[in-house]
Structure formats: structure tokens, C-alpha cells
């Protein structure tokens, strides 16, 4: 008798009212197998996950044809899928639905083994965050808590969109190990990720999607995205580097910072100077205070001790959520219909698109393009390349170096190793 597949997708096609998003996707996964879904931004990866769990139709009004079966049972709506699937969306904050993450984990119709949860949380490095306020979680912490919830949910199939995008190298390794361990316990896992290298030798199958057409591979380096990575590496290694001038823009003197609800300092004795034309790369693990440091430099937060001196007017901040920076109704309005910049940022086709309909990657590129046009004396950017494929990361890196060349001082908080090639200084927090 043929063994029942944990997940079987047959001829799945997805359409919006105007175009075909996915065409005849076919794959199957056995119990305990890991599928890596990869491809360029906007290729249809997220739509695939949404289609598997029924929300593409129910929440986004898309039309679907083909079939999705779990252990031989065809499923057709979200109620049925909820019995088998656990889904973590691209922006991890939004899968934490209660004010405290512990409530998300405990408020289930199944019995949750509190000790096992605690143990797993420690393993993922978020043991101390379960009873914190959900709004105080960093992106990386939210991502790991969402994954922890998935592991404790009793779901047979876990779908995670952009699973490692907000994580530093060490947290990424922890998450990949946890995924591997879960698969050894029989969990079937589908991950969407641009970071194909972390999954080499871990994922059993690789589904590469390009313009809605999916192709199966055995090894991530056989996929076309590997070529994009090589292009990224080549570009950043050969990019022209610039030296900073002697004009001081920001002076950070021995700053310490703790949040009002905490007894511990998240930043301790940080000192550095930023000069015109500098590109300072702030790196460090998730939740170590990189974003907090940028907010202090911008003036949103005041340091508990020490001082920040800004010698110029016009310090701007592009925060982790790029929508906080954008202030116009369409991409074209935001960059003053500058087609040259739109081309560099890969936004030529999105100029007339309302902001609400831009993808997360498009918004990130738009915010940086918009900052480029405004030419601030100092630009602070949080995670400029997060969730971007190599091709789009190149566009962002080019914009940053062009801005640097024009004399702006740039401070970037990022996990992206590519920043190491263009940074004039590196600060580890």
C-alpha cells in the first residue's frame, strides 16, 4: 500500500482578478520532511503558503484551482487546515496575538507542557521573554517566539515565511537546528527563505519559484538564486569604497540605556563618532539594542547616561518598518517621480502603486530611495536588507554607497554580512 504523504499539492494555480500568481504547482512531502521555498521577491512564495492554509481565498479574495491534501484528506477551507497547519507570517510580530507571548502559547485547546515550553524557549534564546510585553519584542525575538508557538501547537505541518530574515548568525543557527530537531520528531516543515546556505543539507527538497512557476531542486546551490548570490558577492566586493571626511556629524559619548520597565541596561558605555561620508555598521545579536541605539541617535529615546551630540540638522531615521518613513500615497509621489532612482531601486513598475499594496521588500527599497532623494546629512537605517533577495540587496547597497559618496553620514543596524564590505566602521553591540 502506498504511504500517505503528509502534504500533497497537485496542480495548484492561484489567480488574482488581473493576473496569474502561481501556475500548476506540484509537490509532496513525507512526514518529517523539510521543504525550502525560495525565489526572488514577488515571485509568489508567500502566496503559496497562504494558499495552502486557505487564507488566500478567504482573506485575500484570490481564486484557486488544484488540490491540497494532508495525509490523504483533501482540505478546502481554513477551519480544516487549522487542524493540521501552523502558520507564521512574514512579519513575525503579527502572529503574536496577545499582549504577552505566554498567553499565545498557553491559550490553546490542547494541554501545553509548561516545562517543555520553557526548555524549548531557552534553547531558542527567548526563555526570558515569554512574560514580557509583546510590543517590546525585537524582530528576532518575535520570530523565535512565533516558531516556539508553532512547535508547541501540535500542528502536523508548520509553515514559516521568511524564517531567518530578522536573525543574526547565531540565532539563525539555533532556529535551523530547532527545525531539524522538530522534523526528526515527525513534524513536516515548509520554510520560505532567501538564505539558501543555512538550509543546505537540512532541507530535503527545494522549491524554487520564479514568476509563479515552481521548479523542484535537491540542492539549494542548483537554484538560480545561487547565481544572484554570486552576483551580490561580486558587486559588493568590487564596489568602490569611500573614506569619511573629517567633518563630525554625530558624537556619541559613553551612552548607557535601560528601558523604564527594566532593571538591566541594554546598552552599556557606547562611544563613537560619525563623520560626513561615514558608513557605520552596527552589528550584534537579536535583542541586543541595535534598533534602540538608532532611536537614541535619532532622539526618539534619551540615554539613561552619557550624551549624543548632533552637529547637523536633518538627521533622518528609516526604522525597521519602512512604512514609518514613507509619507505619500504612492511610490511615485514619495520619490518625486524620479525615474532614475526608481530604476536603481527596482521600482519602475511600482510608481503608481498605492503604498498599501507594495510588498514588504518594495517598501524597504522605496524608503531608502526616498531618503536618498532627500539627501539627509545623517541617515540612520534599521535592517535595510532584511527579507530582500540578493538582487534587491544589491540595489539597496548601491543606493547606500551613492548616498555616502554625496557626503551623507550613514549608520546602519543590520544582521546582513554584506554591510561589512562597504562599512567604514563596524560597531558591535
Amino acid at each position, binding site marked *: 500500500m502506498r504511504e500517505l504523504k503528509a502534504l500533497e499539492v497537485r496542480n495548484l494555480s492561484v489567480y488574482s482578478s488581473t493576473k496569474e500568481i502561481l501556475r500548476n504547482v506540484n509537490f509532496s512531502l513525507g512526514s518529517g520532511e523539510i521543504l525550502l521555498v525560495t525565489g526572488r521577491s514577488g515571485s509568489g512564495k508567500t502566496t503559496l503558503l497562504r494558499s495552502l492554509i486557505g487564507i488566500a481565498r478567504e482573506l485575500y479574495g484570490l481564486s484557486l484551482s488544484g488540490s491540497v491534501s494532508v495525509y490523504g484528506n483533501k482540505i478546502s477551507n481554513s477551519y480544516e487546515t487549522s487542524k493540521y*497547519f501552523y502558520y507564521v*507570517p512574514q512579519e513575525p510580530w*503579527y502572529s503574536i496575538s496577545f*499582549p504577552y507571548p505566554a*498567553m499565545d502559547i498557553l491559550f490553546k485547546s490542547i494541554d501545553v507542557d509548561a516545562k517543555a515550553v520553557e526548555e524549548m524557549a531557552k534553547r531558542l534564546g527567548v526563555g526570558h521573554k515569554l512574560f514580557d510585553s509583546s510590543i517590546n519584542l525585537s524582530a528576532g525575538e518575535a520570530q523565535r517566539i512565533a516558531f516556539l508557538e508553532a512547535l508547541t501547537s501540535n500542528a502536523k505541518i508548520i509553515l514559516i515565511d521568511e524564517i531567518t530574515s530578522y536573525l543574526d548568525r547565531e540565532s539563525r543557527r539555533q532556529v535551523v537546528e530547532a527545525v531539524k530537531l522538530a522534523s526528526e520528531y515527525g513534524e513536516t516543515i515548509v520554510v520560505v527563505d532567501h538564505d539558501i546556505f543555512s538550509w543546505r543539507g537540512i532541507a530535503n527538497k527545494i522549491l524554487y519559484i520564479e514568476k509563479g512557476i515552481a521548479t523542484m531542486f535537491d540542492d539549494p546551490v542548483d537554484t538560480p538564486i545561487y547565481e544572484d548570490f554570486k552576483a551580490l558577492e561580486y558587486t559588493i566586493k568590487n564596489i568602490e569604497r569611500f573614506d569619511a571626511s573629517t567633518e563630525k556629524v554625530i558624537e556619541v559619548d559613553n551612552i548607557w540605556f535601560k528601558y523604564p520597565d527594566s532593571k538591566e541596561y541594554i546598552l552599556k558605555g557606547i562611544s563613537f563618532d560619525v563623520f560626513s561620508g561615514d558608513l557605520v555598521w552596527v552589528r550584534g545579536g537579536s535583542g541586543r539594542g541595535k534598533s534602540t541605539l538608532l532611536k537614541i541617535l*535619532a532622539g526618539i529615546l534619551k540615554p539613561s547616561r552619557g550624551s549624543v551630540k548632533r552637529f547637523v540638522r536633518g538627521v533622518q531615521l528609516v526604522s525597521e518598518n519602512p512604512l514609518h518613513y514613507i*509619507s505619500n500615497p504612492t511610490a511615485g509621489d514619495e520619490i518625486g517621480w524620479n525615474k532614475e532612482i526608481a530604476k536603481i531601486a527596482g521600482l519602475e513598475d511600482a510608481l503608481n502603486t498605492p503604498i*498599501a499594496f507594495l510588498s514588504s521588500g518594495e517598501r524597504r527599497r522605496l524608503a531608502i530611495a526616498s531618503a536618498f532623494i532627500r539627501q539627509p546629512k545623517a541617515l540612520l537605517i534599521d535592517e535595510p536588507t532584511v527579507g530582500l533577495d540578493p538582487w534587491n540587496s544589491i540595489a539597496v547597497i548601491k543606493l547606500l554607497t551613492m548616498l555616502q559618496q554625496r557626503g551623507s553620514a550613514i549608520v546602519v543596524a543590520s544582521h546582513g554580512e554584506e554591510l561589512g564590505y562597504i562599512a567604514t566602521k563596524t560597531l558591535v553591540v
Partner: protein
Amino acid sequence: MSISKAFSKLVLLVLRSLFLYGFTDARRGSTILHLVFAVLSLYIVVHSPLASIPIFSMLIAFYMVFGIGSSLLYSALVSSIPATWMGLTNLLYTWINRGIILLTPFLDVFIRAEIGSIIVFSLMQNINIAELCYLSYRISKTFSLAIGYFWRISSQILKESSEMLYVHGLKGESSWKTLAMLFVRGDEIVDQFTEGVYLKQFSYMPKPIYSRKTVLVQLLMAISVLVIAFLF
């Protein structure tokens, strides 16, 4: 400081006054006892500003016992804005009508507004959301879910609004543009949470979480406030 930056600071103050701490022991008491304390305290404060002193002292002790003093500080700061406004209005009224400046009516109004507002903040800061979700689940699953989501989404919107206002202030954008983008963002936050929690709704089952110490402290406070009600 631009209008956007000033608003950003104000929103941050409100955010901290309501959602500063995590799921501390202070939040693991009884909703009923907490309500009894809050309603009786409000009744007493409205009728006798003098009685505010023991009630405020009790609140200070509560926040100290649970190590969440910063919450009280932020709520006192936020409360002082309308309390000062109301007190000054009263001062102006007596000056116009009687031609003299009297400090007593100002203090009378200010104290009642300030302490009354702090009591309401205390209810919001320390109500047991887990118990509230559990009790409301018995009436309606949707209602119960809505309570948790309300706390989560309102805090997220306040946090993002504060950041967006400040970032736009740095960018030099006009406040009306920021306001428009806040609507876009608010709408999107709701959509994103909908996607994130859509499947979870089917397996939702709240459980009450208590701390004996908190219930005991609340019981003592409720009895004390009853005694004060008889005394004043």
C-alpha cells in the same frame, strides 16, 4: 520641537502609562476584587478629596510591592494634564465670578481628577487579562478573543504611531500627511494581525492565571477601602 515630535512624545507617554510592564504578578489577581476597589475608591475620591490620601497611599504601596513603580509615575504624569486643565478652569471661573483667586477649589478639583484618573489607570494596568478572557469566553468566544486582541492591537498602534510621528517630524513632513499615513498603517496592522491569528481562532481556549499573593493583597485593599468608605 515640531508638532509631530511633540505628539510623538505625548503618545509615548500614554503608551508607557498603559502598557509598560509585561505579565507581572500585579496582573494575576482577581478582576472582581480589582473592580470593587476601583469603583469604591472612585466613589470616595469624588465625594471627599481628603480621603484620596489613604487611597493614594494604598496604590503607592501596591505598586511598590509588585515593583512596577514606573507605571504609577507615568500614569500620574498623564493624569496631571487633564487634572491641571480642570483645576485651572475652576480657578478662572472663581476669579471671573468672585474676583479673587482661591487655591482651595483648584486643589479640590485637581486632586479629585488626578487621583480618580490614577485609579482608572491602575485598573487598566493591573487587570488580569487572562482571567478576563477566561470569564468572557463563557459568554462568547468572539468577545473573549476581542479582549486579547484589543490589548495587543491598541498597544501596537500606539507604539507605531509614536515612532511614525517622530520619524516624520525628522523628515520635516507636515502633520496632516503623518495623520493620513497613520490611518493607512492602522488599517494595515489590523490586516496583518488578521492574517497572523486567522488559524489560531479555531484552537483558542483561554486559561485563568492567578497569583495567591496578588489576590491576598487585593483582598486587603478592598477591605481597607470599605472601611475608608464608612469612615468618610
